[in-house]
């Protein structure tokens, strides 16, 4: 029998035991963003015709919360295990690098989805949806959590101190998510920054995810799907190579 279910279960139990910190807190943060931005901008901004600013903002906030929490789940679990030394509990048993990857990735995706669902649920007070493109919604949600979950594994393996992980989070993940059109349409940016946004993969995730909610997007969702899929494959491949080589885990 495989050890994968136990590792997956352990990772789920780990974040569920601190659900206030791992699920409730990010939902409250997203709610605060929504209250402030929609209150200030609702009357002044209409990004797409017939779509209110709140309706525009909610998918971005849901996606941003999913991205940050999927990353946080795998990266914080690994860095904590490394710093406390209990990483040996998963290195001593006969778990393959693939089982290791799938367990951490699966738990990160699930945490991202639970937080995303939570944010979406509390925003139902502010905007109702017919959700015309449920397939796109699921595809972008899964890919987004998968990409950031895998990136979290890379960061968790690479970082040797909490400080390094915080740098990864604050100087890479946070700018990528904030500068990807969560709060605005990139069409409102100058031409140069529009081009820059097009090389940010998170932009495609948010744009495609928003398309599933409002039926409007800045780029073709098929292009977004292609970019997201390629990113997921590339980061997963990198993660698997690192795990297979034992990089910073088996010296």
């Amino acid at each position, binding site marked *: 029998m495989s050890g994968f279910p136990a590792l997956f279960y352990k990772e789920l139990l780990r974040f569920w035991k601190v659900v206030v910190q791992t699920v409730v807190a990010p939902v409250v943060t997203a709610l605060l963003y929504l209250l402030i931005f929609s209150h200030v901008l609702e009357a002044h901004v209409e990004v797409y015709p017939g779509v209110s600013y709140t309706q525009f903002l909610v998918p971005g906030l849901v996606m941003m919360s999913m991205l940050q929490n999927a990353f946080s789940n795998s990266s914080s679990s690994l860095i904590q295990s490394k710093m406390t030394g209990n990483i040996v509990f*998963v290195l*001593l048993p*006969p778990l393959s690098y693939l089982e290791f990857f799938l367990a951490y990735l699966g738990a990160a995706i699930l945490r991202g989805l639970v937080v995303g669902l939570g944010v979406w649920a509390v925003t139902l007070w502010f905007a109702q949806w017919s959700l015309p493109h449920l397939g796109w919604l699921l595809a972008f949600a899964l890919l987004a959590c998968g990409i950031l979950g895998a990136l979290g594994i890379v960061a968790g393996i690479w970082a040797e101190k909490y400080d390094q992980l915080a740098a990864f989070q604050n100087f890479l993940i946070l700018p990528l998510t904030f500068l990807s059109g969560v709060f605005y349409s990139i069409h409102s940016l100058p031409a140069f920054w529009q081009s820059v946004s097009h090389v940010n993969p998170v932009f495609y995730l948010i744009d495609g995810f928003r398309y599933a909610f409002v039926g409007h997007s800045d780029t073709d969702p098929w292009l977004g799907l292609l970019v997201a899929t390629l990113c997921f494959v590339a980061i997963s491949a990198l993660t698997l190579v690192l795990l297979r080589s034992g990089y910073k885990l088996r010296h």
Partner: protein
Amino acid sequence: MIPAIRAAALHKRFGDLQALNDVSLDIQQGEFFGLLGPNGAGKTTLISILAGLTRADSGRAEIMGHDVRRDYRLARRALGVVPQELVYDPFFNVRETLRIQSGYFGLRHNDSWLEEVMHHLDLTRHADKGTQSLSGGMKRRLLVAQALVHKPPVIVLDEPTAGVDVDLRRSLWEFIARLNREGHTILLTTHYLEEAETLCKRIAMLKAGRVVALDETRNLLQHTNEHCVSLRLAEGGPPSSWAARMQTVGDGSWRVSFSDYAELESLLAALREGGVRVSEMQLQEPDLEDVFTDIMKRT
């Protein structure tokens, strides 16, 4: 019979440090084997290579005939390791920790064995406690229990009694000795040499990454023929013919080393002739600590 543990020409370097230098040894099934050496000798590196936590630069390591890299699943299934560091996962309680650890080995319905292990390690009454709230000794027991969840035929204990009180040490050794009697192979590293002397049938000593001694414990104890006698003199000082060889240890007590009991006889005769009265005498046989110190000095 396939050896429980085989290390063949293992080399490992960390930067400038040659942690292991051509280490070879076989540990037979059912043995209680001691691995001794000063800090930095390479004991933990060797154990880490056997456990797959560290990869050797060259050489081979096998557990029950399974290569630790090529057949890592079988090798790790056959091995239980109690790590030196007192590590635990603060998110879980004792029972959850053991169930999860058991699950990593693909064992689902393992509760009866887990209950038995907890019972023997006196963990049952702490089963629902968070690991963070356990005392150091209890955390150490939990580490032992975690190493045993999959009933491994080979058990490695890396300094299991460091910082552990006398009661726990005794009960831990009773349990480990029982496992050994039931057929489990035990590899032990410890700084408490009297523990190694009592428990281990065979011992290897490492120094600077090399095996400098490998023999049965009783043969190693015959390695040195230095005996020692402590004397407390009630009246007078040491006779002049022996003064150079007698070391004062204060409070009227003296120590003399000798290699032949005939020398002891002539010392006592010299004391008698000199009119010196001996109020207390204690003879000390060489122990593993003497052997260890001697080997480390000479190699």
